[in-house]
């Protein structure tokens, strides 16, 4: 039975290995495609149990961070579980139809995945074209988009998932909660925001990890991350990374613009 042989691909060792990385997924379909490719399973015969489990493990991490994106990911999770349970039920043929070919419960999902993959590939081709104002230039072409961006150095900004990845590394260093501890220190995000701003004061840039050095309780770390994200949203800091999986730097955006004015 293909389901059982494919399931052997997903033993505990593999689970530990894949937990190391969280990549940038644009949505549940991108995540599912990634899991299918990574496990080298046939897209037309997806091992639902194993893929659903890995999918839900990713969601756990995302939920721990309280990311908004989890909404659509949850809808897909319930779809996966529905398909999985449908496949466990005996298939009832409708005698009225006199047709014992029943559509695989996975069929619609497979269609969506293939469609999605095709458009994602198309988008990669689009980006590979000679883009105006990036690869080729014409006389005096100023589109609205380029007006909006002020001149800046060209450090690439990083994706949220790389931040998640860094956060996981920090969390992994934190000790497991101890059970005898009673009561909790209340660390507010507001406090962490002002702490971080103070910490960044007068510094060119600090490493992402440094912002979590104050304590290693989960509460502190989570509050710190939320503070970083909030500051980023308010455009008070900027988060940069020079290379994939490289160091993540946090810069004080406010100070930087003040400097520019003084120059």
């Amino acid at each position: 039975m293909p389901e059982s042989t494919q399931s052997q691909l997903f033993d505990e060792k593999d689970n530990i290995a894949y937990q190391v990385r969280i990549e940038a997924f644009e949505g549940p379909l991108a995540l599912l495609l990634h899991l299918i490719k990574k496990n080298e399973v046939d897209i037309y015969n997806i091992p639902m149990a194993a893929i659903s489990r890995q999918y839900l493990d990713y969601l756990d991490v995302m939920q721990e961070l309280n990311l908004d994106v989890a909404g659509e990911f949850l809808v897909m999770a319930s779809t996966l579980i529905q398909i999985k349970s449908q496949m466990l039920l005996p298939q009832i043929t409708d005698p009225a139809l006199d047709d014992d070919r029943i559509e695989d419960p996975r069929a619609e999902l497979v269609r969506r995945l293939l469609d999605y993959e095709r458009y994602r590939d198309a988008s990669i081709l689009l980006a590979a074209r000679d883009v105006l104002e990036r690869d080729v230039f014409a006389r005096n072409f100023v589109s609205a988009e380029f007006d909006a961006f002020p001149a800046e150095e060209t450090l690439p900004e990083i994706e949220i998932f790389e931040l998640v990845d860094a956060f996981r590394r920090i969390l992994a260093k934190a000790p497991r909660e101890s059970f005898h501890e009673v009561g909790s220190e209340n660390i507010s995000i507001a406090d962490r925001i002002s702490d971080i701003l103070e910490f960044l004061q007068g510094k060119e840039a600090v490493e992402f990890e440094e912002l979590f050095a104050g304590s290693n309780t989960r509460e502190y770390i989570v509050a710190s991350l939320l503070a970083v994200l909030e500051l980023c949203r308010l455009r008070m800091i900027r988060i940069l990374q020079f290379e994939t999986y490289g160091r993540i730097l946090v810069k004080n955006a406010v100070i930087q613009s003040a400097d520019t004015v003084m120059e």
Partner: protein
Amino acid sequence: MNAAAIKKIVESILFVVDTPLSLDRICTILEEFGRDDIRMAIDAITNDCNCQERGIELVQVAGGYQFRSRPEFADYIRRLKKAKPARFTPSALETLAIIAYRQPLTRAEIEYLRGVDSGGILKSLLDKKLIRIIGKKDIPGKPLIYGTTREFMETFNLKDLASLPTLREIEELAESDSDDEQAPLPLLEAE
């Protein structure tokens, strides 16, 4: 007037204008010359740029002709510009690709294909004038339908929508490097 003179006139117009100029438009401007002569002039200019090792080329884009710098000199030209080169997020590109191939379509159709809420991205693409609202679909709720713009073709160096790679080409490409989804895409040199 001889062909060489017409060529110089057409070239001067194409040099000055800051948007792609269609053949029709050039013919309206140069009403005293024949359409065939103008077409030949354009071909001659295109050929000159390609043969004489020039830094610019005459490209067909968004239904017209425009002088553009050659892609290999992008690094040098960027020194002139204050702005960062255009950067599109994968989400924005995905949404653009779906609209480009499936237009006209509604937000709900885009979101079904992508599996995620796309309201924010649609708004930003509208702001950048890469897509536009074409009208309303005649179904309950009368949802808005979206399509790409001339700016989209200008930005992505497309002669017209038909010159997008076909979905079959994309599938073939996907099959050839399906083992490595990160592989760089060898395309678009073929033109």
